[in-house]
């Protein structure tokens, strides 16, 4: 069942099209990771589906409610905003109490302190938000997104700029929320993190979704070629690969020469026997040739 369904969503600022004809479905109970470089449109997408900005065209539904009925469903969505959106002069606990009231959250002060502890803000309840570090501000943003026990949680770069220990804690929290049946929409620059927690990933570039699928599907995407590691003596260099490509009349891409091997990209697995044959014919000793699983980063770079 779709929690979010986006159809031909477009957002323009003046003549600049920031989101271009986005079509996307996010299913109940999944962790959906949205990846994209700075300015790709990730935050604009979140702002548009949460009512912070108005769409230019297209439509979307959230939990069956259309974009025009978004107000009916706001209490069931927890949105983690940018840290710059906080009430800096409020104390942490008072901020959560105010946001909690707006979200229809019935938690009392001790329960809110427990929530702060869960996100790693123990002892910060009575401190003003402006005295918080960047990481602490991120954490209180996450805490306020969890108020009202929402079914859908939208987290905009929850771990960027925070220490590794806190990042792991937040990642564990995301996994725990998923286990509780929550749907999580997550954006991040940390591809490793997206890879670890997401059921599906969307790669956004220049306002368009370039790739969409499970992390495994994206990494195994045949259309993007196969990355192989070739251990030879002498080690194959860029010129050798270029010659090889010309001999085979196939696009073979030199990626990297390591200490004892070379990383190449060939169009498909079917090319591998011919590649090994040509390498041997070129008076090079071939010791090993293996398929390397692509990282999400490579998928992202090729998107």
């Amino acid at each position, binding site marked *: 069942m779709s929690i979010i369904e986006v159809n031909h969503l477009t957002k323009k600022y003046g003549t600049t099209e920031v989101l271009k004809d986005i079509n996307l479905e996010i299913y109940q109970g999944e962790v959906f990771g949205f990846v994209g470089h700075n300015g790709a449109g990730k935050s604009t997408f979140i702002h548009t589906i*949460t*009512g912070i900005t*108005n769409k230019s065209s297209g439509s979307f539904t959230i939990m069956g409610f259309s974009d025009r009925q978004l107000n009916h469903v706001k209490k069931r969505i927890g*949105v983690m*905003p*940018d840290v*710059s959106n*906080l009430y800096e002069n409020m104390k942490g606990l008072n901020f959560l109490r*105010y946001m909690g*009231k707006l979200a229809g959250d019935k938690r009392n002060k001790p329960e809110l302190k427990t929530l702060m502890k869960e996100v790693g803000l123990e002892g910060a309840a009575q401190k003003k938000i402006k005295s918080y570090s960047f990481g602490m501000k991120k954490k209180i943003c996450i805490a306020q997104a969890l108020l009202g026990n929402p079914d859908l949680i939208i987290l905009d770069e929850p771990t960027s700029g925070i220490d590794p220990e806190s990042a792991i804690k937040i990642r564990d929290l995301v996994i725990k929320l998923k286990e509780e049946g929550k749907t999580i929409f997550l954006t991040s620059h940390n591809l490793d993190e997206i890879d670890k927690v997401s059921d599906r990933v969307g790669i956004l570039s220049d306002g368009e979704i370039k790739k969409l699928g499970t992390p495994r599907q994206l990494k195994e995407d045949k259309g993007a070629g196969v990355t192989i590691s070739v251990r030879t003596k002498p080690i194959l260099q860029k010129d050798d690969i270029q010659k090889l490509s010309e001999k085979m009349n196939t696009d073979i891409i030199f990626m990297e020469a390591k200490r004892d091997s070379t990383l190449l990209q060939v169009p498909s697995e079917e090319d591998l026997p011919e590649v090994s044959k040509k390498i041997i014919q070129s008076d090079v000793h071939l010791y090993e040739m293996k398929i390397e699983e692509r990282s999400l980063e490579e998928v992202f770079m090729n998107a």
Partner: protein
Amino acid sequence: MIHILTREFLESFKSVRSILIILFITFVSYQSATFIDSNPGLIQEIVKIGGEEGTVYTAAIALIVLILGFLFVFATSHDLINKEIELKTMRLLVTKTSRVQIMVGKFLGTLLFWVATITISFAVIFIISGSWFLKDYFHSFVFLFYIVSFVVLVSTVFTKSKLTMFLGILFGIALPILGLASAVSNNWYLVPFKYLLPYRYLEGSIALMFVPIVIGAFYFLISVFIMQRKDL
């Protein structure tokens, strides 16, 4: 909405500016009421020439509201909407509740603060005179309703709080002059102010006093309309 209203109302009391304004209005009301109370002959003279007893007691507060009302409300609330947009905290609010509820909450919270302020002054007058002058109280309410609606509109249209602070001073000085002048003059260039500003409606029948409320409500609806279309 009630939570935004409550916060807006309580926060209004926390600024030094607001406290000074409350103290000023209350002090002037107290001083004028005790002066009138100790000079009963003055009341009789005014009643003889067609005035009302209540008008004598509430003259000071009426003058404050009519002449300084715009300036005072702008001084405390010129950034009611645009400050939250500037600080981007409005983004946080709209993820939790509707824009209409935010606007209504902020409008009512501010109005309630001003109603509370004049209620304190009328309570002081009541203690001294022994009467609650309902008609004058309603006059002040109507006027404040109009001003708060206008301030909300300005704060929604102009997104820079520094600009609305400047405009607030400008409007705070110019509008009472234009309003009072248009109420007694028939110059063509003052005609729009005669009908748009609340001054001329305060000396008519009770029904006429509802006109500024209707205009104020219209200003507020325009503010909501603009707010609905804003990218925050």
